Structures are given as structure tokens and as C-alpha cells.
């Protein structure tokens, strides 16, 4: 099997045991239990030049291959000597370095957005960006100025980056999200008289808690209580707990006791995974979980000075000797080991890699790799291997394995080898779904680019998928690696809106802060580069310029903003309210216009405010609407300003209806009339005048006769008068208001019928020739069920309407008579439609006969 020797250049693979001795670490494999395999990959040789290695300095490395911060203690211990703060990429390229001039730093750490946090002894937390520029500071509580911070931890949870500190009074203070600081003082731990032997922060059930150990006792501190706890199945011989480590996801917990035992279990301590005796009694320098999600092999890495031990449930441990003093950086799926010279990755060997690279493996993937190798050598053995796979019906699986394994590799050559094999195997498959292959190639290309020494973000595929490409792009942007970020966006075809535009926006935001360049130059550069790129928010860039005190630049930049609505808030902030108003109007969003208008109203004096509105008719009419419902007096002022007499007239009319007292109503109407006159609206002026006259008349009538009719229309007033029999007054009104005859006749007719004053009706019908004819008389009588009276008027009805009149009084014979006489087709049909065949036989016959003869003519 010499042909399968590539396991040799796959040198960090730790199986079989025989090979381990060559590589350094010594594995003590016990009684052949389940596989327990890890590999250590060198990520970078560090580019920094640290004379003393990591000794005498505080170090903080951000997870997900983030930056590293070092705080070097001064060489000389003179009081004037200051520590040096340095920031590096994961590959050790310097990004910033400056003298630390503030207070004593207790803890360094990174936020999820790559900001450096320095927790000082006095409780102040200073925030710096990646390039060492100071951003802001905040305090973890005033009491710390007195009591001091003893220890601090920086942690990440779904809520963001948090800080936990232990005060000199042995109290824990917590901030779960430094972007939205809400300090929480956790309850006191009973009997705590000194620094706990170890503690950590856990994020469970949407709550952040502190787990601490003092001697053999373990407590959980949450918002309300301090609860003593004991891990399930904790060996009785265990005495003091001296080290604790939570897993990356806070689901698991490891405890190290001074007896050298490690307890591993769930974070709620209820489930135990295992307990391992390390045989080491000295306190470890660091302990961290090293566990790929979904894997079956939980393990913990423990470090003592230059000695590293990997332990897990199978009692199988791996040891490494380290050359230099190192720090462990726990990751989602691995642990990174940073030393003064090297940066390595320790991870569990993925099952699929193991299957492929295991010596003498017969897994389909291993065979496919072999087949491809033979194919490249143009050997017919390729075919043999392929047949072997096909016999097992495992070609699909083989391709999948190779693709998956490629994803786990850091060395591009190995990736390529595996991917070529997969691609080779794919040729012999029909209907193989290419998505996984394509996406793996794409992802690896991105990963290789960011893992590059010059960029220094050593992400694994799993980490990359967890953090998402959006976050990766953000990280590149924080590092000002704009070209690379844009290239990735384009390569992955991320919609411009979320990709390129966002990067360019950051670039522009960064650009506007460059104080040495002139406004014009920057504005031109920005617009040149961003141009019409979709989804660019120029207003965000402008806002940044404004924050930096460059108002003029901000205004220039805002001109490029296509969304006028977006410009408004910033323009208001910059006190360019006139411009804001026209932009709001341009956007068409009336709510925005309202917002600016209310802002202007509070900002300006009334005169200027009205003047501004006058120039913006849309804003003015919106404001009028607002006033109509909210501020009637302002409305009047607005109309007055514009000399809009018509609207003023309307305003007073409306006002008159809101008044209960007749006098005030009258004076409102008087005003209305004056305004209508000024508006040259004669009709309205006259109508208003008539209304006032009517009201006066009604009042008088009310006073004299006690009839309540104030507010009624003229028609109703007349009706009332006629009903109560005040005919003289009715007559007077009718004349005064020049009511048309027709209407008056209708009115009187109806009123008399309602009163059933038939006598008066008959008199009325004879006063003069009715302007409405006599059919209404007939109809009205019928309506009031008086056929007898109705008949009286039938004869007076005009010939055209006579048929209708006869029908109305139920005289079909009469109707037929007239219809026949008039030989009117329509009328004959009308009569016919009222006849029933049985009772009106003769009439029907006569009508039909007439129709027939009429038809002949």
C-alpha cells in the first residue's frame, strides 16, 4: 500500500500512534477505547517581534480569528515608566502601538464589533478601535473608584458584549451589553471574605449569571439570588475547585480541582459527562473547551506553563509540550494557541478527514482520492479504484466526503487535491447536485483570502458559516480592507444593497473624517467613487461628516442622497429647516412634512413661520388641516394673513354652528357676511344675510308664539307655521324670502294634507291656477288615504296627466276613456297594466280594440 503514502505530508494528523512520536506530542493511549484524536495546525509564524515573548504582558485575542491586543509592562520599574499598548492581527502584523497613559488596566478584551475594551482598576472602561483611536469611555459603577476592580471578565452573549467585574467589596457587577449599559449589582455571596478561587460568566435561559467557587463550594449568582450548587456526580475526594471554564456556547462547564481532577458536564451542573484525573496538582494557567458542535467527543484543553493536556470522557489524553509561554483562545470549534513565535490551531480531527486520510482506509472518499491520483499519473489503476467504489455504490458518498474534507483543510494544496478528486468523481455521476461542491469552492476561496498572512483572519469554515459573510465583511471594513471586502461581495454576488454599497459607505464615512482634505475634494471623491451605486445612504455619510463637525461637507454630501426623506432628519439637526421642508415635500411623505412643520413652528417666531409656509403651498395646506382639527384660532390667523376672505367667511359660518347662544351665532354670521362681501361672493353674502333674517324672525316667533323653530330651514319653518295654522306669518315669510310659487304650493299642499284640512285645501286650490298642476293634489289625497277628496281634483288635471289621475283614484274606466280618446299608445298600455283580466274584461277588450285600430292607421 505504498501508493497511499500521502498521509505523510498530511503531517499534523495524529493517528496512528506510531507517528506521534515524530511530531513531538506524546500520546498516552489507554486500553484502546474510542478514538480520541486532535490535530494541531500551524496557522502563522508570528510577524511580531516580541523580545520577551508573552511574558510580562497582558494579552487579549478576539474570537473568530480576531485581533490581538498586548499591554506590555514597562521594562524599568520607575514610576514614570508607562506600559505600551500594542494591537496586532492574528498573524502578528502591527496595527497600532501607543504609550498607555491612563490608569491601571485590570483586563483587556474585544467586543463583537472589534473594539478594544480596557477595564481599569477604578471601574472606568476605555473603548478603542482596531487602530488604537480612543472612541469613548464608561464606568462600571462609582463605587469602584473606592473599592477598585479586583478582577474583570469580558464575555459575549446573544445580547452583545458584556463585562463582569468583581469589586473590592467582593461584589459582582454586570453589564450584559456595553452598547446599552444597564449595570446590575448581583446579590451578595454569603460569607465571601476574599477573592473566589475561580469564577466565570454563563449565559443561560436568556439570563446572565456568574458561577463562582470558593474552596469546595460552588455558587450561582443571578439577578435575584445566590444559590449554592453542586455538580452531579462530583467525586467526594475533590476538594477545592481552582479553575473553571464554560464552553463557547455556555452549554458545558469544566471544573478543575486541586486534586488534579477535571469534572466535565452540562452548564446547569445536572449532567455529568465525565471526570478525569490529570495527575497534575499544580493549578493550570488556563483551561478551555475544544469541541466541534455536533461532535461526540467533548474535550477540554488544560495548560500549565509549557505543557498542554487534552482530556475527554474516554480517559484518553493527549499531551503537547510547548516551546514558549502561550495563551489559549477558545473558538466555536477549536482552540487557538498563541505563543511569542507561533499561532496554532488545535482541533478535533473531523470524522470525514479521518476516514479519508486514515492509513489503509477503505472509505469511499479515500478510494476516490486514490483513484484521482492514479488518473493524474495516467495509470489504469484509477479505473480499478473507481470500480471498487462503484461496487459499494459509494461514488456519491465519496464525492461528498472529499468536498466536506476539503472544507476542513487550511492548506490550499490539500483543498485543491480533495476538490479535484471530488470533481473527478462527479464526472461519473449523473444527477449529482452540485450545490455543495460549488459553495465549498466559493467559501474556501473567500477563507483562503482572509486567512492570508497580510489579512490575518484565520477562520475555519464552521466559524465562517456561524458568523455569516455579512459579519466577515464588517470585520474587513473595520480593518479598512475595503478593496478586499468589495472583491468578496462581488465574488459572492451579494446584492449591492447589502454588499458593495455597505462597504463603500464605510469607506466614505472613513474618508470624511480625514481632516486634512478640503470639503470639495472629499465630496468629489466620494461622489466619484460611489456614484449611482444602488442603496448608498449618503445621509449616513453626511451624518458622520456632521458628527465630525463638518457641516458644509455634510450638506454637500446630502445633495447626492436620492431619498429626500432620508435627508430631512439630518437637515433638521443641522438647523437647515427650510431645506428640510422642501426635501420633505419632495419626498411626498406627508407625515414627514408634518414633522418638519411642527419643528419649524417651535423653532421660529410666528411671523417667519407663516412666511415660510406661504412659500410652500403643500405644507401650508397640510398645516391648515392640522389646525382645522387642533388649533382653530391659528387657522383664522392663517387665512387672515393670506387675505383669504372666502375661507374666513366659511370659518365664521362653521364657528356659528359651534355656538349655542343666538347672539354669538348672529355675530359670527355677521362676520361671515362681511368676509363674503370682501371676497365678492355675493351669493354667499346674501344667503348669510337671509339666514340672519330668518333667525331673527324665528326668535321673534318663539318669543311671541312659543313655537320653537330657531335653526330650522326656511322650508321647515314654513311647514311648521302652516301646520300650527299661522297662515299669515307663513304668507309673510313666503313673500319676504321670495319663495318660488311652485315650492310654496307643494309645501302648503303637503302641510294641509298632513293636517287633513281638506276644506282649506279646496279653498287653496281655488285661490289661483296651481303652478304645480292638480295631479299633486290627487296624489297627496291618495297618500293620505282620502279617495273622496282626490276625486274632486281629477277633472282639473291637465289632459296629459289625466290617465294617471284616474288610475290614482282607482277609476280604471275613466282612465280607459281618456286614453282611448287621446289614442295614446303609452297610456293605453299603462291602463292595461293596471287591469286584471277577470274583473276588468270589458275595459281590456275596449282598450285592445282601440290599440288595434290605432295600429292600422
Amino acid at each position, binding site marked *: 500500500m505504498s501508493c497511499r503514502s500521502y498521509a505523510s505530508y498530511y503531517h499534523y494528523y495524529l493517528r496512528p500512534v506510531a507517528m506521534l512520536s515524530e511530531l513531538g506530542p506524546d500520546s498516552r493511549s489507554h486500553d484502546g477505547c474510542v478514538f480520541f484524536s486532535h490535530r494541531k495546525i500551524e496557522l502563522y509564524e508570528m510577524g511580531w517581534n516580541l523580545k520577551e515573548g508573552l511574558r510580562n504582558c497582558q494579552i487579549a485575542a478576539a474570537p473568530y480569528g480576531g485581533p490581538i491586543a498586548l499591554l506590555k509592562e514597562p521594562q524599568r520599574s520607575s514610576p514614570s515608566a508607562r506600559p505600551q499598548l500594542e494591537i496586532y492581527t492574528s498573524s502578528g502584523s502591527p496595527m497600532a502601538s501607543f504609550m498607555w497613559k491612563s490608569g491601571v488596566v485590570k483586563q483587556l478584551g474585544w467586543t463583537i464589533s472589534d473594539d478594544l475594551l480596557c477595564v481599569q482598576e477604578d471601574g472606568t472602561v476605555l473603548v478603542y478601535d482596531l487602530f488604537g483611536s480612543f472612541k469613548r469611555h464608561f464606568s462600571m459603577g462609582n463605587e469602584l473608584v473606592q473599592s477598585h476592580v479586583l478582577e474583570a471578565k469580558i464575555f459575549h452573549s446573544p445580547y452583545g458584549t458584556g463585562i463582569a467585574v468583581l469589586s473590592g467589596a467582593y461584589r459582582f457587577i454586570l453589564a450584559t451589553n456595553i452598547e446599552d449599559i444597564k449595570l446590575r449589582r448581583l446579590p451578595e455571596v454569603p460569607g465571601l471574605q476574599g477573592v473566589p478561587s475561580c469564577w466565570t460568566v454563563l449565559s443561560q435561559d436568556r439570563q446572565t449569571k456568574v458561577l463562582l467557587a470558593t474552596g469546595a463550594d460552588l455558587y450561582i449568582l443571578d439577578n435575584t439570588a445566590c444559590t449554592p450548587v453542586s455538580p452531579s456526580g462530583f467525586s467526594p475526594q475533590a476538594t477545592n475547585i481552582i479553575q473553571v471554564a464554560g464552553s463557547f456556547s455556555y452549554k458545558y462547564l469544566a471544573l478543575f480541582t486541586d486534586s488534579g481532577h477535571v469534572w466535565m458536564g452540562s452548564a446547569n451542573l445536572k449532567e455529568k459527562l465525565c471526570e478525569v484525573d490529570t495527575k497534575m496538582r499544580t493549578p493550570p494557567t488556563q483551561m478551555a473547551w475544544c469541541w466541534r458542535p455536533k461532535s461526540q467527543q467533548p474535550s477540554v484543553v488544560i495548560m500549565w506553563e509549557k505543557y498542554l493536556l487534552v482530556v475527554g470522557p474516554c480517559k484518553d489524553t493527549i499531551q503537547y509540550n510547548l516551546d514558549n509561554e502561550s495563551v489559549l483562545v477558545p473558538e466555536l470549534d477549536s482552540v487557538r494557541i498563541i505563543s511569542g513565535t507561533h499561532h496554532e490551531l488545535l482541533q478535533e480531527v473531523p470524522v470525514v478527514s479521518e476516514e479519508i486520510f486514515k492509513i489503509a482506509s477503505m472509505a469511499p472518499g479515500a478510494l476516490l482520492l486514490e483513484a484521482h491520483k492514479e488518473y493524474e499519473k495516467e495509470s489504469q489503476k484509477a479505473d480499478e479504484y473507481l470500480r471498487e467504489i462503484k461496487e459499494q455504490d459509494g461514488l456519491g458518498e465519496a464525492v461528498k466526503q472529499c468536498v466536506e474534507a476539503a472544507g476542513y483543510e487550511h492548506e490550499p494544496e490539500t483543498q485543491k487535491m480533495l476538490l479535484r478528486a471530488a470533481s473527478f468523481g462527479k464526472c461519473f455521476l449523473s444527477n449529482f447536485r452540485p450545490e455543495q461542491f460549488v459553495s465549498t469552492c466559493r467559501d474556501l476561496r473567500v477563507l483562503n483570502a482572509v486567512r492570508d498572512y497580510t489579512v490575518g483572519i484565520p477562520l475555519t469554515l464552521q466559524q465562517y458559516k456561524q458568523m455569516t459573510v455579512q459579519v466577515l465583511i464588517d470585520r474587513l471594513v473595520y480593518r479598512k480592507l475595503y478593496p478586499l471586502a468589495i472583491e468578496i461581495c462581488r465574488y459572492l454576488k451579494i446584492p449591492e444593497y447589502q454588499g458593495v454599497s455597505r462597504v463603500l459607505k464605510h469607506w466614505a464615512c472613513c474618508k470624511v473624517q480625514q481632516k486634512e482634505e478640503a470639503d470639495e475634494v472629499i465630496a468629489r471623491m466620494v461622489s466619484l467613487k460611489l456614484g449611482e451605486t444602488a442603496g448608498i445612504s449618503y445621509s449616513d455619510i453626511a451624518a458622520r461628516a456632521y458628527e465630525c463637525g463638518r457641516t458644509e461637507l455634510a450638506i454637500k454630501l446630502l445633495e447626492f442622497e436620492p431619498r429626500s426623506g432620508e435627508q430631512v432628519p439630518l437637515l433638521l439637526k443641522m438647523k437647515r429647516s427650510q431645506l428640510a421642508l422642501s426635501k420633505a415635500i419632495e419626498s411626498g411623505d406627508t407625515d414627514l412634512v408634518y414633522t418638519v412643520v411642527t419643528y419649524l413652528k417651535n423653532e421660529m417666531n410666528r411671523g417667519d413661520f407663516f412666511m415660510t409656509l406661504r412659500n410652500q403651498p403643500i405644507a401650508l395646506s397640510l398645516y391648515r388641516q392640522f389646525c382645522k382639527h387642533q388649533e382653530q384660532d391659528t387657522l383664522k390667523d392663517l387665512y387672515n394673513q393670506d387675505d383669504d376672505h372666502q375661507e374666513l367667511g366659511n370659518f365664521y359660518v362653521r364657528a356659528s354652528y359651534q355656538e349655542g347662544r343666538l347672539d354669538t351665532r348672529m355675530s359670527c354670521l355677521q362676520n361671515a357676511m362681511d368676509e363674503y362681501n370682501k371676497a365678492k361672493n355675493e351669493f354667499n353674502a346674501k344667503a348669510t344675510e337671509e339666514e340672519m333674517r330668518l333667525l331673527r324672525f324665528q326668535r321673534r316667533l318663539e318669543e311671541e308664539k312659543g313655537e320653537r323653530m330657531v335653526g330650522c330651514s326656511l322650508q321647515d319653518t314654513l311647514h311648521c307655521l302652516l301646520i300650527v295654522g299661522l297662515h299669515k306669518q307663513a304668507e309673510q315669510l313666503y313673500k319676504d324670502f321670495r*319663495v318660488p310659487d311652485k*315650492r310654496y304650493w307643494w309645501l302648503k299642499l303637503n302641510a294641509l294634507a298632513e293636517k287633513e284640512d281638506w276644506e282649506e285645501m279646496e279653498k287653496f286650490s281655488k285661490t289661483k291656477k296651481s303652478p304645480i298642476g292638480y295631479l299633486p293634489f290627487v296624489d297627496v289625497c291618495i297618500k293620505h288615504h282620502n279617495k273622496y277628496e282626490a276625486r274632486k281634483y281629477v277633472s282639473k288635471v291637465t289632459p296629459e296627466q289625466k290617465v294617471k289621475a284616474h288610475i290614482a283614484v282607482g277609476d280604471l274606466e275613466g282612465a280607459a276613456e281618456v286614453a282611448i280618446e287621446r289614442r295614446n299608445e303609452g297610456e293605453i298600455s299603462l291602463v292595461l297594466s293596471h287591469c286584471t283580466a277577470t274583473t276588468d274584461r270589458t275595459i281590456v277588450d275596449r282598450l285592445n280594440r282601440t290599440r288595434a285600430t290605432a295600429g292600422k292607421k
Partner: protein
Amino acid sequence: MKRRLAQYSTRTHDFEKHDHRSRDPPVCHMILVSEGRKMAAHLSYGRVNLNILREAARKELREFLDKCAGSKAIVWDEYLTGPFGLIAQYSLLKEHEVEKMFTLKPGRLPAADVKNIIFFVRPKLELMDIIADNVASEDKLRTPRDFHVLFVPRRSLLCEQRLKEKGVLGSLINVDEYILDLIPYDGDLLSMESESAFRECYLENDQTSLYHTAKGLMTLQALYGTIPQIFGKGECARHVANMMLRMKREFAGCQTQILPVFDTLLLLDRNVDLLTPLATQLTYEGLIDEIYSINNGYVKLPPEKFAQKKQGEGEKDLPTEPKKLQLNSAEELYAEIRDKNFNAVGAALSKKAKIISAAFEERHNAKTVGEIKQFVSQLPHMQAARTSLANHTSVAELIKDITTSDAFFDNLTVEQEFMTGVDTDKANTYIEDCIARKDPLIKILRLVCMQSVCNNGLKQKVLDFYKREILQTYGFQHILTLNNLEKAGLLKLQTATRNNYPTIRKTLKLWMEDANEQNPNDISYVYSGYAPLSVRLTQLLARPGWRSIEEVLKMLPGPHFEERQQLPSGLHKKRQQGENRITLVFFLGGVTYAEIAALRFLSQMEDGGTEYVIATTKLINGTSFIKSLMERLEVPP
């Protein structure tokens, strides 16, 4: 089985009774009456599946409800209950732990043992004051409830400011917006259900509804693809098109890669055609709306004709509750007759009756078990058809009583005289008589406005006469309504220029002497002779194009225009042979059922080549149109 049904109904009843203050009518009617999940089926019948829009709206609603974890009570701005009924039934709300519903009103909220109180409101300042009052008077001793506000259709800074001033903004957990611009109403119909749109645009110069229209059209384009061609006529149409183009620029880059469903968008201002809504609609659906008014897809009818006479039960008491019917194309028979001229409905109904009874007769022919089984399987459908037939026969009878009355006939005669240009320049005796008899004011206003529109304004003498008659008869308070009508152009003074209505009528063939009501060959059948101007414009746009009527377009108010929206390459539609174009016609300021019927008629024309989907700010008729322009002034006590 029977018992279970009974239990179910009591439960429903409990729900209705929830409100402790019994004088308050519960607001759940809209949601309870709709018939479960079936309801949305009618939306997918049309050429364009409007269910996508409805589903998108439902999804958003669910997401918001889930944001407020735990049991909830909804406090409704009553105006919204109707439109919401078209989107979601109570079942959906219930699935998301909505246990109680109240109507928004000042004072203390009714007791309800829920975790969340959600206000569903339009962004109106006066409603904010009520919310503030509700929140402030919350009993401090009870377990605290979380308050949320959901603005429909859009949040408003102004309203939030008001809440802040009132000191309650801080106590609101979620303040969100529910973007409900275009509500799917039927398979080919979208409405914004905003009744004041015309008034706001033309009287108050408030273009909020146009902004919502543009936003709604953007949402529509996000779901159905960019509409490549936009045509329009009128000031508002121009404004909406401008906003759309601007918004498209603003959102450049997040364009949807969807093959466009609509080929053309036609934006029409209502004021381009003021005549049509004033005329009495003569289609079946139009008449139902004219007489009983359809609200959010429902109509309430006098119950007498719907009394169920079952065999052996003898005379039952007549029901007193109005009969409520849902009207949409989900009902097969209704879909068939809704757009017919009412004169053709009787024949259609009797034909249907024959088919149904023939279908029931089939049972005698069913001999084999298989045949019987097949018959039985069709029974539910047949029974539904029979109920539907019975209902519509009753409705048709109700309508017939009115359409055969003299009053209806006289009114129609005058309308048609106006539309054909007979004596439109002098005071009309019929109107005079109606005023003298004090017929309903809206009827008078409809006629007077119609005369004015058909005469391109009235002479000073005539106008003043009408106005004076109206004020003297119906009261001085209507002076403001008259002002409004003048401002909106419905009533106007004839200026020196000549009356161009006859030209428009002749060029656009607005009056067809020989309208065929039974088997129509032209859209004029919907008004028995009058072809709605708006629909004629739509028809001419499709063929032969507006260039042929430039002169007439210039006589109508507002600009006419054409815009093209660039499509991303690859999204250009390749039309199949014989595949119709789809045009979305948007009526800014309302559309009548008769106009919809006319457009559906055009869609179905064999050689038409264009199908229409209709969108509007609100479904209107002459009465509701005039009403929306009236000024409500109460005579003080």
C-alpha cells in the same frame, strides 16, 4: 353532531358578549361572519393571483402578533375592522392568542385578563388622545399589561410625537406599522378602503392618500414585478407617477427579479370623469350598492324576503335582523350576474333555476349505486347553488320593487336627458319638484352636479337658483357643502368658453342609442346607454391608443402622460400567441361597480386583447361620493 354544533355556537356567543359594558356593541362582527378559510379562494380566480398580496399581508400580521408574546386583546379603531376582515378572520387572530377585542373609545379599558393590549389604529391625532387616555386610566393595582400600538397603514411621527407629549410613549412596548395599502377585494379588484381620498386631494390639498397609493403600488411591484408602462390622466395621477418613479430611484438596487405580471398601469383621476359616479348604476351589483350600499364586501338587506319557509313549519315569525350577505366572485351565481344590466338578471336567474332543478331531477335517473353516489357527492354544491339562487332571487325582487317605481323612472329619465345634453342649461323642473317635495338632499345634489358637469358649468342664474332653493329647503348649514362641491369642480359657474361636453360625448361615443342590455356589445350597457367616460378612456388607450383622442384629452382636466420603467435585462416578457396583455387601472378617488363591470366586460371581449385588474382608493357610488364631500354641520340645540 347537533350538540356539538350547538356548543360551538355558544362559544362564539360568549366571545361576542365579552364586553362588560353591555351598551357597547362588540366589534367582532367583521371577523366572525366570514366563512373561515374558504374566503380567499375568490382572490386566485383572476388572471393575476391576488392571494399573494393577501398572504403577504397576513404574514406580516402574524409576525407582529407574535412579537407581543402571550395572550392579547385588540382595541380596534372601528374604521379598520371592515378592511381587516378582508385580510384575516378571527380564527387567525385566535391562533395567535388574541382573546378579546374592543372598540377604541375614551376612558378606562374593559377588564381583560390578558398580557398584552394592542391598539390597531389609523395615524390620527384624535385617536392618539384616546389611546393616551386609555393607557393613563389603566388601573394601577391590577397586574400590569403591556401596551402596543400598530399603525395602519403607516406609522406617523406626528402621532408618536403626540403620544410623547401625552406622556404615554414610554409605556408602549411596541410601536409598529402595518402597511396595508392595497387590500385584495376580489379576484381582479384591489381597494385601499380610504373613503376620504377624493376629498383630501381636491378639497384639502392633502396628498397623503396619494403617497400611500404610490407606496402601495411599490409593494405591488415588489410582489408582481416592475410594471413597464405607466399611463395617466389628471393631476393626482401625475403626482403618483412622479412619486413612483422617485421611489424606484431611491430603492434602486433592491429591485426584485420577478417577471412582470402587469404590462401597463393606467392611473386615472376621478375628477377626469366626474359624471360617471353621479349617474345611477344599472348593473345588478351597482344597483345593490346604490340602494343598500355594499360595505367591505357585505350588504345588509331588509329581511322580509328572506324568511325561510320550511315545509311543515307553517308561518314563522318574520326575522327582524337585517339579512347580511357576502358578495364576491366566490359565489358562482353572483359572479355570473353581478355585472349584467339589471334588465338581464331576471332571465339569467330563471335559466339558472331551470338548470338547478334539472340537476336535482337527475336523481330519478340515477339507477346504479355508482350513479347515486356521484349524485350524492354533488349534493352539497347543488344545495349551495340553490341557496344562492334563492338569495339572489329575493335580492332581485327587492331591487325590482324600486326600479319599477315612478320615482326611479323619473329620476333616470332626467339623468339620461342630461347625459344626452337635453336642456342642460336651464333650471330643471324635475329637480325643482324634488326640492319642493324635500326629497333627500343627496339625490338633489347628485342631479344638480350632474347637470353642471354635462353642461360644463351652469349659468349664474341657474346656479344661484339651485343653491338658494337648497339652502332655503334643507337649511343654511349646507352652504359649506355647496362651497365644497364648487371647489371640487362638481358644481361650477359656466365661464365664457363654450360647453365642450357634447364634443367629448360625441368623440368618445359616450351615449349609445341602441345599448343592448341583454347581450351587450358595448360598455354602455352598464348605464343603459351611457358609456362611462373613464372606461372609454381605458378602452381607447388599449386600442387604438390615446394619440387618436389628443383633442378630447386636452379638454379633460389635468395632464396626460406616459412613462416607461426600465426592466432589468432578462425580465422582458415574451408574449405567447394570443396571450392577453394585463393592465392595472387605478382610479384615484374611487370607482363605481358599474365601471368595474364595464372593465370586466372589456376583459372578456374575445378580440379585446387586454385584461384588466382594477385598483382604487375606495369603491364608491354617487351617494357615498357626494357624502364624502359634504360638510357636517349640526344645528346647535
